[in-house]
């Protein structure tokens, strides 16, 4: 038992790094998703199609490939980034692609009456968006967004592939040093499990309440997880 606590204690810095990577990626990804989602509601094909293309690309590429593309690819055009920043960009763009659909649905779901009321009150388009539409959309979308957060959190385990000392990386190094990879990797797994379970629980509670707001027939909760794997 003591060994377990020691191990977990030693892994906490790695967990912190992973959480930081997740947060940083989402800080980039969510706003990207909002912008893309809004653009996707446009009536003009010329606006929608480039976004659709980008979204399909970044949802279609394995996250690892996107990561390598950023980390190894950008130096080719003389942009050299640290592994951490590469993770932010790669996962930012990937999570942005996934969240774009969530926001598209949420923004479209805002009742027309809300916008009409804003117009009647002579609000400018930008004000309408940030003060009326966005808050409404976020209320509806936060639960699926949590799902994306969970995927991203699990996805950051890939950061180890480019040398980041995240949770997995820390556990692996320690395991090599101690010649006990099994125990360390299991502890890594346990920590991922705890964080994931906690976030999932909150997400499920939120989805039950948000289902009505999204207004589409959803074929049971787990199907929304179709997104859950990067």
């Amino acid at each position, binding site marked *: 038992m003591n060994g377990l606590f020691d191990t977990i204690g030693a892994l906490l810095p790695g967990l912190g790094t992973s959480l930081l990577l997740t947060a940083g990626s989402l800080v980039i990804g969510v706003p990207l998703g909002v912008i893309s989602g809004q653009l996707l509601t446009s009536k003009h094909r010329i606006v929608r199609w480039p976004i659709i293309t980008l979204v399909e690309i970044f949802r*279609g590429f394995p996250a690892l490939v996107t990561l390598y593309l950023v980390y190894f*690819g950008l130096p080719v055009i003389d942009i050299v980034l640290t592994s951490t920043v590469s993770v932010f960009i790669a996962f930012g763009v990937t999570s942005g692609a996934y969240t774009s659909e969530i926001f598209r649905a949420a923004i479209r779901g805002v009742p027309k009456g809300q916008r009409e009321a804003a117009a009647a009150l002579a609000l400018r388009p930008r004000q309408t968006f940030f003060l009326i539409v966005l808050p409404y959309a976020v209320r509806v979308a936060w639960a699926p967004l949590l799902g994306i957060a969970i995927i991203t959190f699990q996805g950051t385990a890939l950061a180890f592939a480019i040398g980041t000392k995240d949770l*997995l990386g820390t556990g692996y190094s320690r395991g090599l040093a101690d010649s006990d990879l099994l125990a360390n990797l299991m502890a890594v797994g346990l920590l991922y499990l705890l964080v994931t379970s906690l976030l999932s629980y909150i997400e499920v509670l939120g989805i039950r309440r948000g289902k009505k707001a999204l207004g589409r*027939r959803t074929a049971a909760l787990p199907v929304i997880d179709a997104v859950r794997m*990067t």
Partner: protein
Amino acid sequence: MTVPQVLQGLGVTLELWLGSLALAIILAIPVALGRRSKNRFAYGFASLWVTIARGLPPTVWLFLLFFGVKFGPTATSPVIASIVGLGIVTSAYIGDSIRAGLESVEKGQWEACSALALSRPTTYLRVIGPQALPITLAATAAYAISLLKNTAIASIIGANDLVYYANTAVQLGSDAIVTFLFVGIIYLVFTIPVGFLARTIESRTGIAVSGA
């Protein structure tokens, strides 16, 4: 030349994909039945399986099976470790698709089968199954896409798939942007048709599958 070098990995990628998909489907059936079971042990075990399978990132599963476990074929072959690891993770999701499909069938259908004294296998295979299929298939298609993308992780533990060879090519001097874009597009070639399929089923049956 990037192209032939990278494509060497296509075979292994497909092997990883189809192998873990098959394993996932096989494991998913007891998971689905367990989650619908009134038996507390069956339900508990299935739920625990789902929690652990989904609670660990696929990357961690692969590391655990290849580096952590010291005996057996998963310790020696990165491909086998990846198939088992990805199979376990995906089985939880496909199990839920099967369960969702079964639950989407009206209760009255089950009762009609009981009232007509149909056997359990007949009930599942001839009456309920066909009705559960659209939802199950659509969701499974979506997960199959995710699975294909996840096979890239196998390259980290040494499986010689597409990404592995892409990395090799870059180390040998190929342009990184071109190479990785190329690899990405190969994945797109496979995932976009399956995505269309899932979305066609979605629009035909009016049920949301690709939640995002």
